[in-house]
Each structure stands twice: as C-alpha cells, then as structure tokens.
C-alpha cells in the first residue's frame, strides 16, 4: 500500500466553469423544492404537538424519560443501611433545603429509603389552613409560578406568555347530560318529607356502568359515610354535624387523610349554603393557578377548598421535567406530561385540580382511588385513546348524596412519589 501510495503520480485537472455553475444551480433548486414541499405539507397537516423550542428540549425528547423515571423509582426503593440514613437524609435536606424540624418522624432512621423520606408526612399543626370560607388555599408547598384568569377561548398562560388550551389540559368538558341529582334539591325535598331517589353509578367512566337507583331512606341521609347529622344542620351549616363518636375532627393537614366522618358534613354544609350546583348568582369567571414543587418540598397535596370530586382523568403522557426553565421554553408542556385531572364542583361552580408528573416524580397517588396506576411502562394506550387520550373514573358511588368524593379544605388528597 505504501509503495503504491508513494509511487502513484497525482494529476490535477481544472473543472469547466459551466459544470460548477450547473452543480450550484441544481443544489439551490433542490433546496427550494424541499422547503416549499415542507411548508405545503405542514399547512394541511394537523398541527401535532411536537416539543420544539430550545435545543436542550430536542435532546430531552429523544430520551426514554418514562423508563428513566420508572427505574429511578425502583432505585430509590432500595432500603438504605441504617447507619447511612441519618447522614444521607441530612445531606439531601441540606442540598434541597428541607426543613427537618417539620418532618413527621423525629428519628430519620425510620425512613427506610429515599422514596419514603420523599413521601414523608409533616408534624401536626405545621400547616394551619386559612379558615376564611371563600379562601382558595394552596394545595401544596411550592412556588406560585403562574396565576390569573383563563382567557376567552380557554387559553391558559403557562409561563412567559406560553399558552395552552384548557381542553388539552383537562380533556373535553364532562357530558352536558350529567344526570347527577342536584344534592341541594335532594336535601330540600327530604326536608319537605318527599321521597328522594338517588342514582349511584359504579365503575369507571366508559365501562359498562351499573346504574343503581334506590330511594334514599332517612337513615341514609342521617348516616352518610358514617356521619350522624341532622338535615337542618346540613342546611344551616351550624356546628352540630359530628361523627358517630360525637367529636369534631380538627382541620389539620398532618392527619393521614381526614376521617371521612366529617368530610360529607363539611362539604355538605358548603353545598347546601351556596347556590351550589347552579353556580353562584351573578357573573362567574374561570381562574387558574400553577404551583411548582421543588425536589426538597413536602410532596403530598391537599384540598384547596371544600369540594366534591366527581371524576378523575388519567392522561398517560410524557415525563418531561416541569422546572420553570423548561416551562418557559416548551409550549404546551402541561398538556404533554403525564397528569391526573380531578374534576368536580365547589360552591361557586366547576373546580379542578391537576397534579402533573415529571421525570423524577412520575408516580401520582390519589388516596381515594386505588385503581389509579401512573408511570407504568406498559400503558393501556388503547383504552385511554378510546376516550380522548385519557382513562376516566367516575366517583359517583362514593357518596350518593353528593355525587362524588367529598374533600374538605386541607384534607390530604394524595401526593407525588419518586419514579
């Protein structure tokens, strides 16, 4: 090879100028054709949500985020050796600014791994709930990234002017023919001594639901979910609603979750007081608020108001990071990520709360929804797609009177788990 390389004579020829111009012209024509065909294809093609934006986003969207998140969770569930737990969690607390004095367990060794420490509870009394009846309180510890009014046409501003549509976030509005009885009417009919029929729909939305119709007996009204309260108390809202054992459950978020004995009464009182299901009198607006939880924050979320959760929609999307940096660069981020939409009503009308997952916290738990599975590698796409991209569960069976799950303000609803 060396011999032939050294001895072969190199001869140089000049390229005819015409040929050079022809090659440049041809490449220019080809480029122009490809750009015109791309624009025409894009014009008539349905605009797909494709994560565009900064180059870092493009890199992100090539990663197997769900698999990364899933195995991140598996890794964090490996029990730590006891001697490592205290220094390990103190290091984590120092890096991410965790206030260890609020952590539920004084002995950090009781948390077997980071996943348990991440999903810790807080000490009783460290998160008092704003008592004002019209207050919407924060569902979680974190930073208020965005808030405001939903623009006409259902556009919600994400961060820095990026907007996304409400329908994309929550799914299409629930079917208008909602047959749920107007509970305020039910209560009033009961007071007039009329019989009341209530339907309870069991099962998940979209499945063959069993409609169960029965006449609500006096006992049922007086003893829904273990409550023994008188109907006038439900309407007047005075404090004689109590649970079977007679004690008033304190409003304290540190409780694992409010004992449901006071839940229905608390929400029921609100229900009967406001012009509940027909919405409040006068003009109403649609508002939104976005709270971002950093890695060191307490990761359980609580109810912002007294409301009834009627249905849940699980969108098994991607798991991009939801850091403020990415939120300001990836349009429609919240409509791309895995999320669990809780839809229901409060005394002024519609109310929804949507925990949105992220790469390191792919698993979302809802305490009263054992069937929910998020961040699963084997996602049941067919079912979700058949229902507009989400799997829906209806909670009407939870409380026939209220037509859903009653969650008083401050009650723990669920939380984000690692992985």
């Amino acid at each position: 090879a060396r011999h032939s390389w050294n001895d072969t004579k190199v001869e140089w020829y000049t390229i005819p100028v015409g040929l050079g111009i022809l090659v440049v012209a041809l490449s220019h024509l080809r480029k122009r054709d490809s750009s015109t065909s791309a624009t025409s294809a894009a014009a008539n093609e349905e605009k797909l949500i494709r994560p565009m934006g900064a180059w870092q986003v493009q890199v992100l969207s090539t990663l197997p985020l769900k698999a990364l998140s899933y195995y991140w969770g598996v890794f964090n569930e490996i029990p730590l050796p006891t001697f490592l737990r205290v220094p390990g969690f103190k290091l984590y607390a120092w890096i991410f600014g965790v206030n260890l004095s609020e952590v539920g367990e004084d002995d950090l060794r009781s948390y077997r791994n980071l996943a348990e420490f991440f999903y810790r509870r807080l000490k009783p009394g460290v998160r008092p709930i704003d008592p004002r009846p019209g207050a919407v309180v924060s569902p979680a510890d974190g930073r208020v990234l965005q808030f405001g009014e939903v623009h006409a046409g259902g556009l919600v501003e994400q961060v820095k002017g990026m907007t996304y549509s409400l329908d994309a976030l929550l799914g299409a509005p629930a079917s208008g023919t909602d047959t749920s009885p107007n509970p305020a009417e039910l209560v009033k009919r009961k007071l007039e001594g009329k019989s009341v029929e209530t339907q309870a729909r069991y099962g998940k939305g979209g499945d063959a639901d069993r409609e169960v119709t029965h006449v609500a007996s006096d006992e049922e009204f007086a003893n829904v979910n273990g409550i023994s309260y008188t109907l006038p108390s439900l309407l007047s809202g005075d404090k004689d609603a109590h649970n079977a054992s007679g004690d008033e459950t304190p409003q304290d978020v540190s409780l694992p979750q409010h004992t449901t004995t006071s839940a229905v009464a608390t929400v029921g009182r609100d229900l009967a007081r406001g012009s509940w299901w027909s919405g409040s009198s006068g003009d109403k607006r649609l508002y939104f608020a976005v709270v971002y939880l950093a890695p060191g924050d307490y990761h359980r979320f609580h109810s912002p108001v007294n409301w009834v959760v009627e249905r849940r929609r699980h969108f098994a999307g991607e798991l991009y990071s939801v850091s403020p940096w990415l939120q300001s660069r990836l349009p429609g981020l919240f409509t791309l990520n895995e999320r669990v939409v809780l839809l229901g009503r409060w005394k002024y009308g519609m109310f929804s709360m949507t925990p949105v997952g992220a790469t390191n916290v792919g698993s979302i738990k809802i305490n009263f929804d054992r069937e929910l599975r998020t961040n699963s590698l084997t996602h049941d796409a067919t079912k979700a797609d058949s229902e507009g991209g989400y799997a829906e569960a209806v909670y009407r069976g939870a409380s026939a009177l209220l037509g859903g799950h009653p969650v008083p303000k401050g009650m723990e609803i669920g939380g984000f788990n690692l992985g």
Partner: protein
Amino acid sequence: STVVLVFEAPAPGPDGKGGFRFTVERGQYIKVGEALGVV
C-alpha cells in the same frame, strides 16, 4: 412536579369590589393551607 388549579369563581363587581381576587405574587413561595386567593 406541579399542581394546576382551574376553577370557577364569582367575578368582581362593576366597582371592582367583591368577587374572587388573588392574594399572591408570581414567584412567591407558598405552603399548604395558605390562601392563594379569596372570594
């Protein structure tokens, strides 16, 4: 992780009084139970 709230609430009256109003600032750190806004 992030929690997004979307809800209906009474609009402020013609005089700008009443109705729902936010009581937080953008970027503010908030804890469970503290008011985001009030009717």
